[in-house]
């Protein structure tokens, strides 16, 4: 993903840099969409069968013809809406891994949006799992981030290359906690230095 840092997310702190953005693998949404497209194919098959083997659609002013066209049209419209919704769901579900935390945004249905965040120092373990035929074939799977608390909400499914992503998260975690250890020492040293400067009185 280009220009990661143009992405806005709630509570972005100064100096926070987005290191990685994870979305679901394209195959996951393709599976959903193909399931919906089967509905359209079935409708076309029903139309062909009715046209060729019955007289129901012969009268283009008849009740059955009107009902079939209006019903079929509405059916296709809703299939397209569901495809669009699946795409929006895919597009808005994102894991942003910054140099300080993980921000997971999930769109669940039309009226439920969950944004959860986890500071990198709270990570205890990161594991990845590739399970099933399609995930093995297309190299996608899930990432599970174990936190210090019992909450089990950092689970992201259908991530491309989950091993690489989990390794990167661990690297960022290591980097973050090493900075976290160094920074207080630096601040302490600076403070010591400043107070010793203040204590110093030049000879008159």
């Amino acid at each position: 993903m280009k220009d990661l840092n143009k992405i806005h997310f709630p509570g972005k702190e100064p100096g926070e840099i987005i290191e990685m953005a994870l979305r679901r693998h394209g195959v996951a949404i393709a599976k959903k969409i193909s399931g919906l497209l089967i509905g359209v194919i079935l409708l076309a098959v029903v139309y062909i069968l009715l046209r060729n083997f019955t007289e129901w659609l012969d009268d283009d002013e008849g009740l059955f013809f009107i009902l079939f066209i209006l019903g079929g049209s509405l059916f296709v419209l809703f299939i397209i809406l569901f495809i669009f919704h699946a795409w929006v769901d895919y597009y808005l579900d994102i894991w942003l891994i910054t140099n300080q935390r993980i921000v997971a945004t999930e769109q669940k249905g039309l009226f439920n949006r969950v944004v959860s965040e986890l500071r990198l120092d709270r990570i205890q373990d990161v594991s990845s799992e590739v399970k099933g035929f399609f995930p093995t074939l297309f190299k996608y799977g899930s990432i599970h981030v174990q936190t210090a608390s019992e909450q089990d909400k950092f689970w992201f499914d259908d991530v491309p290359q989950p091993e690489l992503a989990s390794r990167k998260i661990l690297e960022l975690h290591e980097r973050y906690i090493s900075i976290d250890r160094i920074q207080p020492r630096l601040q302490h040293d600076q403070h010591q230095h400043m107070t010793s400067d203040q204590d110093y009185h030049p000879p008159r």
Partner: protein
Amino acid sequence: MQADPLFYMVYLSYTKSMEFSPFIFLIAYLIGVIILVLLALINIYHIIRFGFLRAPSLVATFVFVILIVGIVLATLQILNHIDWQQPMEITIPFINNNEGFE
């Protein structure tokens, strides 16, 4: 009384006619389209609200709108010749076997 089989059949199954305007189907269809547009607007709102209004989302929204408008227009075009105010008659087979024959 010995019943004539033909008379018996006609007596048992006769039809009932109903008249109605096909306009109600058009209204039902338009209500469906309105619900669809509302749901679509909620989806588009989510895209705009959460800051992902960029090329892929603009293209997807554009394709979606074009498809929806195209299908609605094509449907109305196919049914262009229908006189929606002209009452239609449907016949329902009605079976009454409460009264038996001796």
